[in-house]
């Protein structure tokens, strides 16, 4: 053992390079695996409390991404009447309308009712809670996610101005209507952290006002008509605007899901779709699966390349070490001792590579974590290593040992052939 260490130390330059190559490949494969797992858990956590999402008919994945993750949009809106229609369906426990399309400095702005905060569940059934303040009460109140608060330094009482459009570039500022923050949500490690919530009334007002700005007297009349119409239905919601983007549905009875889905799909007044978030996620994974597999395949190839690098290092040194082996033979080392030395050397190099790879992986996660959670609401998970990753590393170690058998076998034949004669 000490002999092997001393021998490696004698070749420390090449050995270090080999360890580094293995370390990088190990860090890569761990990152790819962890990122994939975290993305999946994080997405699943974001959507876990919603049974159905009702939106204008479209692609399931697109609807899911637009509503739960604030990525893209649902296309056309649906009429506010649908909320009442859905609410009265059997098995429906709650329905929360959503309005989208604005952003605040790149963070999506969601118009919703204060019931959202009661009903929305994330990460296996945890409810939202307020780190500071509470839900909005008035039209110009806003609630922000933990990430928004941290990034922009907002707290309860801060006034914010939203911009039209979903992108980070503010094309049109809704200067006329500032919102006052009444609450900051506790961190959830889901997409909610990067959202800004305002009341439906507040959201609607922005857009109604800009519509009125277009100076169409008939449009204004129509608005007024609609407003009075809406008021008749405002028994438990307060205000529901006539155009919304989506509705979250919670069921009191899970078995009702297919009935509700069919009823929504056959709704006569407008084309609607009811999306089950988990089903849509599966669809999403099947789309991204190909890319994921390509990425995994590549990282496996990188690990294989680093293993080959190690075999090259061991093999290249064999010729130069013939004398060393002959001397060891002369002092009583059996050929299998020499073989064992090579295998042990490979295992040591691989183990060192794995250890260094872990260090690289952990430091990279520390650096990447805030970025990932800010941009995508994805957290890598505090866990240092999970069982799967340990298995992965053990597999790498085994392959390191196996790969060394090739040079070891050569050394075995060499020592037998050379005996004690040290021809050079």
């Amino acid at each position: 053992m000490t002999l092997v260490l001393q021998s490696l130390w004698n070749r420390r330059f090449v050995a270090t390079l080999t360890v580094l190559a293995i370390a990088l490949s190990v860090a890569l494969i761990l990152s790819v695996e962890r990122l994939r797992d975290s993305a999946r858990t994080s997405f699943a956590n974001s959507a876990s409390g919603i049974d159905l999402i009702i939106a204008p008919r479209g692609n399931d994945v697109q609807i899911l991404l637009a509503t739960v993750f604030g990525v893209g949009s649902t296309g056309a809106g649906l009429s506010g009447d649908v909320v009442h229609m859905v609410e009265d369906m059997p098995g429906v426990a709650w329905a929360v309308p959503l309005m989208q399309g604005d952003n605040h400095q790149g963070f999506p702005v969601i118009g919703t009712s204060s019931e959202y905060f009661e009903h929305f569940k994330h990460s296996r059934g945890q409810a939202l809670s307020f780190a500071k303040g509470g839900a909005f009460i008035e039209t110009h109140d806003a609630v922000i996610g933990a990430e928004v608060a941290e990034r922009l330094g907002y707290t309860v009482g801060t006034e914010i101005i939203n911009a039209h459009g979903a992108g980070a570039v503010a094309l049109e500022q809704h200067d006329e209507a500032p919102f006052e923050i009444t609450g900051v949500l506790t961190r959830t490690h889901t997409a909610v952290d990067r959202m800004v919530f305002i009341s439906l009334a507040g959201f609607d007002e922005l857009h109604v006002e800009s519509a009125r700005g277009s100076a169409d007297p008939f449009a204004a009349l129509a608005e007024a008509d609609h407003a009075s119409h809406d008021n008749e239905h405002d028994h438990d919601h307060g205000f529901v605007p006539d155009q919304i983007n989506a509705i979250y549905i919670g069921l009191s009875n899970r078995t009702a899901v297919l009935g509700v889905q069919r009823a929504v799909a056959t709704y006569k007044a407008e084309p609607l779709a009811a999306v089950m978030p988990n089903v849509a996620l599966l669809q999403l994974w099947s789309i991204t699966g190909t890319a994921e597999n390509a990425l995994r395949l590549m990282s496996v190839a990188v690990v294989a390349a680093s293993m080959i690098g190690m075999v090259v290092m061991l093999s290249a040194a064999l010729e130069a070490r013939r004398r060393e082996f002959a001397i060891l033979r002369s002092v009583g080392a059996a050929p299998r001792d020499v073989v064992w030395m090579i295998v042990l050397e490979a295992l040591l190099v691989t183990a060192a590579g794995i250890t260094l790879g872990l260090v690289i992986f952990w430091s990279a996660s520390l650096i990447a974590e805030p970025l990932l959670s800010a941009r995508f609401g994805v957290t890598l998970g505090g866990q240092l290593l999970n069982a799967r990753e340990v298995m992965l590393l053990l597999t790498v170690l085994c392959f390191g040992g196996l790969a060394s058998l090739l040079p070891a076998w050569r050394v075995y034949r060499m020592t037998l052939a050379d005996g004690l004669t040290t021809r050079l």
Partner: protein
Amino acid sequence: MLRGPSGSGKSTLLAAISGVTDIPTGAVTVASQDIGALPVSKRDRFRADHMGLIFQVFNLVPWLSAVDNILLPCRFSKRRQGRIDGTLEDEAHRLMSSLGLDPKTLGHSKASALSVGQQQRVAAARALIGTPEIILADEPTSALDPEAKETFMHMLSQQAQSSGAALLMVSHDSGLDHHFDRVINITDLTQPGVSA
């Protein structure tokens, strides 16, 4: 001492005695052990336990220190390790100084940093450590100048004597005959009908 011109089979004989090459049963007996009858792994063990070897050149593992080189046999042979009184390091130092090497200055220098003469003496110390029964030396002096040759042979035979080891050396150099009790010419041995 075994003498003979190069190519006459001296080194082959040493290889046979040390059990590195396959030999028929009953051909070689060392310390009342039939080398040919032992399986390969036992021969390695036997060599580690009972023999010390010295070669012409390149005796040492270049990246180990002199002391570590000397102690190499102890890593492979519990028996030789067990025969040393006191610490291994002390014994290595004792052998070094008795062979005219200063353990303080040279003990921890890398073998590759030593002169050829010093390397051969370190090799001799390695062959002697743990008092093996027989020391096999394959032209250990051929890389040394005449004067160094004399002192090396003197010290080696003295140490072999004090540790009670038999010294079998092969060489083509008749100038070294006076260090040995018996000198055999290999050409006599290879004559049919003669036994050693």
